[in-house]
């Protein structure tokens, strides 16, 4: 009897493995470029940072805000691209942790995306104290506020509800903030400095791709994944 069960289990594992492998084999990437038309408002110098002795010594020039990370040809970075309405597919528990660092009295990166259940590690690489104040707005994602002294252990966060642009901030240094988007699937990414994005291993099917920029709002496009990579481009405009 025992050996019969073992054989059945083995067969089931093989079948499941084959199905999974088949899906990955059929899965495709959604790729694209995000561009910005128009001239964004100028970024501001973070002068309070340079007025703070602890923070100023880590910079030779005054850092600026970076709401609009735009390349020479309008390539737009820091746009969060995801498959709208895809839920219950999170692999966050087994995904490697995402990292948010406090360095030079600034958050790095400013825009980040993670999965529900995925660990988010917040480090303090600075020689001064920060408070890590997470201010989610979706019920089920708890607000928290913790001090983090220089050299202190990393802080770990997990969020179980999807949420766009969950804000992390430091109230000791109020110019420090980052936005973390939480998705209930692994199908998302953040556009790079060339405005490029890749959502990997998307199973075949019809989807709505959503591109969200913290300042410029959201855009969507319907598309279908079949047996090859699909290109979807977005163009935002500053009004």
């Amino acid at each position, binding site marked *: 009897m025992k050996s019969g069960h073992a054989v059945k289990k083995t067969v089931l594992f093989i079948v499941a493995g084959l199905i999974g492998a088949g899906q990955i084999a059929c899965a495709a990437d959604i790729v694209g470029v995000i561009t910005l038309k128009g001239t964004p*408002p*100028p*970024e*501001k110098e*973070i*002068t*309070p940072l340079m007025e*703070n002795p*602890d923070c100023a010594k880590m910079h030779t020039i005054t850092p600026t*805000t970076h*709401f609009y990370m735009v390349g020479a040809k309008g390539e737009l970075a820091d746009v969060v691209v995801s498959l709208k309405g895809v839920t219950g597919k999170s692999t966050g528990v087994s995904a490697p942790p995402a990292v948010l660092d406090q360095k030079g009295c600034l958050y790095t990166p400013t825009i980040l995306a993670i999965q529900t259940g995925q660990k988010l590690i917040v480090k303090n690489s600075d020689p*001064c*104290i920060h*408070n890590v*104040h997470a*201010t989610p707005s979706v019920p089920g994602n708890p*607000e*928290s*506020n*913790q*001090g983090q*002294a220089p050299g202190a252990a990393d802080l770990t966060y997990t969020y179980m509800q999807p949420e766009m642009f969950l*804000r992390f*901030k430091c*109230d*000791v*240094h*109020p*110019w*420090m*903030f980052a936005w973390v988007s939480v998705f209930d699937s692994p199908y998302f990414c953040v556009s790079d400095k060339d405005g490029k994005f890749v959502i990997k291993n998307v199973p075949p099917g019809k989807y709505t791709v959503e591109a969200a920029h913290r*300042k*410029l*709002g959201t855009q969507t496009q319907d598309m279908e994944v079949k047996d090859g990579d699909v290109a979807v481009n977005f163009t935002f405009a*500053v*009004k």
Partner: protein
Amino acid sequence: MKANAVSKSNPWLFWFAVLTAFFTFLLLGLGGLVTSHEAGMSVPDWPNTYGNNMFLFPPAQWIGGIFYEHTHRLLASLVGLMTTILAVWLWLKDSRQWMHWLGVVAFLLVIAQGVLGGLRVTLHMDSLGIFHATIAQLFFVLTCAIALFTSRWWQGLERRPPARREENSADKHAVPEAGAPLRGLVLFTTILIFVQLIIAAAMRHQHAGLAISDFPLAHGRLWPDTGAAAIARYNAQRVSINAENPITAFQIELQMAHRVVALAILILTAVSAWQAWRRLGGKDLLTKLALAWFVLILLQVGLGAATIWTNKAADVATGHVLVGALALAVGTLWCAIAFRESVTAVYDRRTEDRRSPGTAAIGAQPVMTGNK
């Protein structure tokens, strides 16, 4: 001790009450700086400070936003201690029973205010900040009122001789009354200032910066567009150094309400000052107070405009909070004095009537005339 007993003046108690009001004013200023610098949550725990006893937190760590929040807590502790002493002092030494209870109210209010400030931190509730800011204003007014009521001048008013408060009296020392319409006008304006301070607290605790960044226009118009497309455009154009929330239509409407109420208050204080001058003459204390009140509101309008023109510079915005508190206090004290004088006048007239029944009709006549 009787409820209406007249107290013997105690200059030490008076000056201690003045000092408490002064430190409360400073505390309001520090609280304003905490909000203006977005530092309310820079100390994540309460009543401890980063795990330390609040009073033992090393000064070397009072950096950035921690400096504002921590010094606010320390000064609040001092004001709490002073208020406790004041309440006990009033209970033991002031012969007026109502003053005992005023001290108790101040004590309860300062305790509630401290707990509310702490809960705002530990419960992460922005909305509690609105109540915290509003109660702060009320508490400041209360400390000013206690200082007034413990003054020799006020207690002299309680003992003022009969004929002085009667309008049209033959007594050459007679002082005209403010009259019910003027008292009502100032009371209404004071209440409106309080409403304005609640609106202001609600605006500040949205943590969204300036919902309207221009003045006297609003997003380039007399009345701003609050449609979804317009809000998206305003947010796209806003580049702020701090981690501000995006603005909403509600926040824009709230700031417009603040502007409209400010205009109403400016007009009402101007009318109050003019009416006080006309009815009481330029030398009367109530006229001087009403004029000072109007000047304060003028200053307040200027500070409000400067708050916008400087993109909500912390010191300017805090100055705006402080002058608002002073305006509320002046309006309240004006009402207290005017109503006290009115009560004194009625009480005195009744006393005079009882003393001279034959002249009652004569004594009553000016009152009726004065109240028309």
